[in-house]
């Protein structure tokens, strides 16, 4: 099983078959994380650089654990994009990293397209761990794996994505992936949070959370960045919670076996009520667990795919 790709820059570049392959491999890697000795020698002698030009805890940790469980040598580099603007350019950093002969570079960056630029510059495989508001392919893959594991398929599912779609790379990658896999996606939020022409990406659009939730199989909530209040994206967290928070009342509109997802970190009481986040229908921690498996799968596939 091989993935005929140098890089994973976005869901946009993946086919249905490739996504299915990645999810299948991820399923097989889930078991490794449940062993007593959580390590396989698959990537022994390989070097993975986690190059994070934007703060991240969970994604970076997830990639690091994924690499280590495959016996790769993982190195973390963090930089702030502002210091890169003043100091070394991304191009120079990329060339420097390339010269150290790693096998895979995982990059997160505040600027959309930065991983694509890196991929053009270096010969190593690049994995996009989130670029601006553009894409977050590993998040979408772990979300798809989580849904598939619980629902058996993605085909035909009714999925609501609710929150600040404009600034969300998670939303974009999930829209691309879920619609490609045959799910019906509806996005919801106040109009300021829904970017223009989002319907052209093949999703339904609504400004009423009740309408988005009605008969949904999956409700995916997005984190509201409270500082965006200053950009008039919403007037207050109180007002937002009144109209766009997933709670025990509006969740009843969904299918009885609805499952709740959130890429985290969550704002309790803003976009998601605590009893929903902690409830039996919540998959939030499953998502985190699957994140390691999906990232193991991608590292494995990009490193050549041989056992």
């Amino acid at each position, binding site marked *: 099983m091989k993935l005929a790709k140098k890089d994973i820059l976005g869901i*946009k570049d993946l086919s249905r078959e490739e996504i299915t392959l990645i999810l299948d491999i991820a399923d097989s890697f889930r078991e490794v994380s449940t062993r007593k000795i959580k390590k396989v020698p698959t990537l022994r002698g390989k070097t993975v650089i986690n190059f994070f030009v934007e703060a991240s805890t969970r994604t970076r940790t997830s990639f690091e654990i994924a690499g280590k469980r495959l016996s790769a040598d993982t190195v973390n580099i963090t930089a702030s*994009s502002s210091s890169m*603007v003043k100091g070394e*350019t*991304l*191009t120079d950093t990329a060339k420097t990293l390339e010269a150290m002969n790693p096998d895979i570079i995982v990059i997160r*960056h*505040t*600027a*959309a*397209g*930065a991983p*694509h*630029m890196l991929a053009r510059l270096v010969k190593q495989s690049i994995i996009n761990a989130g*670029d*601006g*508001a*553009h*894409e977050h392919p590993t998040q979408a893959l772990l979300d798809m794996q989580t849904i598939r594991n619980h629902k058996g398929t993605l085909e035909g599912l009714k999925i609501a994505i609710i929150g600040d779609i404009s600034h969300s*790379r998670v939303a*974009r990658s999930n829209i691309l992936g879920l619609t490609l896999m045959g799910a019906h996606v509806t996005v919801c939020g106040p109009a300021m949070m829904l*970017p*223009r*022409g*989002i319907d*052209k*990406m093949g999703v339904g659009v609504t400004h009423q959370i009740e309408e988005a939730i009605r008969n949904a199989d999956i409700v995916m909530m997005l984190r509201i960045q409270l500082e965006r209040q200053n950009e008039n994206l919403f007037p207050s967290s109180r007002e937002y919670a009144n109209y766009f928070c997933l709670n025990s009342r509006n969740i009843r509109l969904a299918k009885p076996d609805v499952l709740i997802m959130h890429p985290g970190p969550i704002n309790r009481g803003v976009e998601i009520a605590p009893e929903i986040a902690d409830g039996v229908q919540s998959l939030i921690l499953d998502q985190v667990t699957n994140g390691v498996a999906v990232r193991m799968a991608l590292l494995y596939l990009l490193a050549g795919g041989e056992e």
Partner: protein
Amino acid sequence: MKLFLKGGRVIDPSQNIDSELDILIDNGKIVQLTCDHTAVTPSDVEIVDVSPMIIVPGLIDIHTHLREPGHEYKETVHTGSEAAVAGGFTSIACMPNTDPVNDNRSVTEYILKQARLAGMANVYPVAAISKGSAGKILTEFGDLKDAGAVAFSDDGRPVMNSRVMRSALEYAYSFDMPVISHCEDLTLSEGGVMNEGVVSTELGLKGIPAIAEDIMVQRDITLAAYTGTAVHIAHVSTDGAVHAIREAKKRGIRVTAETAPHYFTLTDDSLREFSSFMKVYPPLRGAQDVQSVKEGLRDGTIDAIASDHAPHSSIEKDIEFDFAASGINGLETSLALSLQLVRDNVLSINQLIEKMSVNPAKILNLSKGTLAPGSDADITVIDPSLTWTVNADHFRSKSRNTPFNTWVLQGKAVMTIVEGRITFTNR
């Protein structure tokens, strides 16, 4: 030395001429247009056979950035002038966003001095509207005009304060000077890096809505009507702006407009690879906007085609799209890209020359843009069928930031004559 251009097809919209004529030039001036091939003898003139080329009044670029003083690593008056004549431009108007800003006589005089030293193209400085282009205090319009400025503009840093803009227009009226407006509502465009629309949504890049341009075009039309001052709208890129300008012209308001080749050649679809060479303000727009810009060119709503030549080095361009400088290097591709409009039946060749020479001269009140006897011998010789491949490494410009690199274009200036001197030839 006299010069005799023989056998070309002379197109001069200023005199309604389109026929095979020879041109006699003496002492930097056009002496006569004649169909008598024997008007001169080789002994006293240099005879240049320009058949079967098109001979037009020297092209005038109403909107160029020369980067000097301050950013000489991107472009100098010298290299910019070389790029200009290589692109067929005999005259260029350069915007004031240099460092320091061209907001006083000494900067204007410095640019003119550098232009004289370069001796390639006529350079006409556009001075700033406000000191430091900060949008607060007007510059010394009278002194700047006396020093050689031909218009005022805070290009790149539009005057947001409507009271300041009103004062600027009133004051410009007193000196009979045009004001060139870069129309962008900065409060709407803040943080944006590309056109707002389906593509920005897909790419997750912050959008600049077309309304940021439309609203300021409307404001400046309103101010032009109120003050009576001639306002020239720079780099029109939106459907809304074209409509507003068309209506304003119908109402008799003194408004003129330009667009640039990238606004009728490229759409925001070109940004999908995150190439910073596609980053420009105003941003590349959607297909409907491109269509409207072409329609505006066709029906005369848009008077001029400008290059908006904005050279940037790799330091500003070989970085993340969000952080990259905006601007397209245009002087050496502008003519060929515009000639495509003729092949696409958007414009006749006569209309194109109007928009690239006659009208820019009128807008800036220059005694150029004509081949009438007695006028300055500024002449561009164009081979309309020459097919060539854009190679940025061969640009005369110091910078390489073109989205058209490797494009195969048709039509090229093969000789540029400035005040009787051949300052460029590739024949």
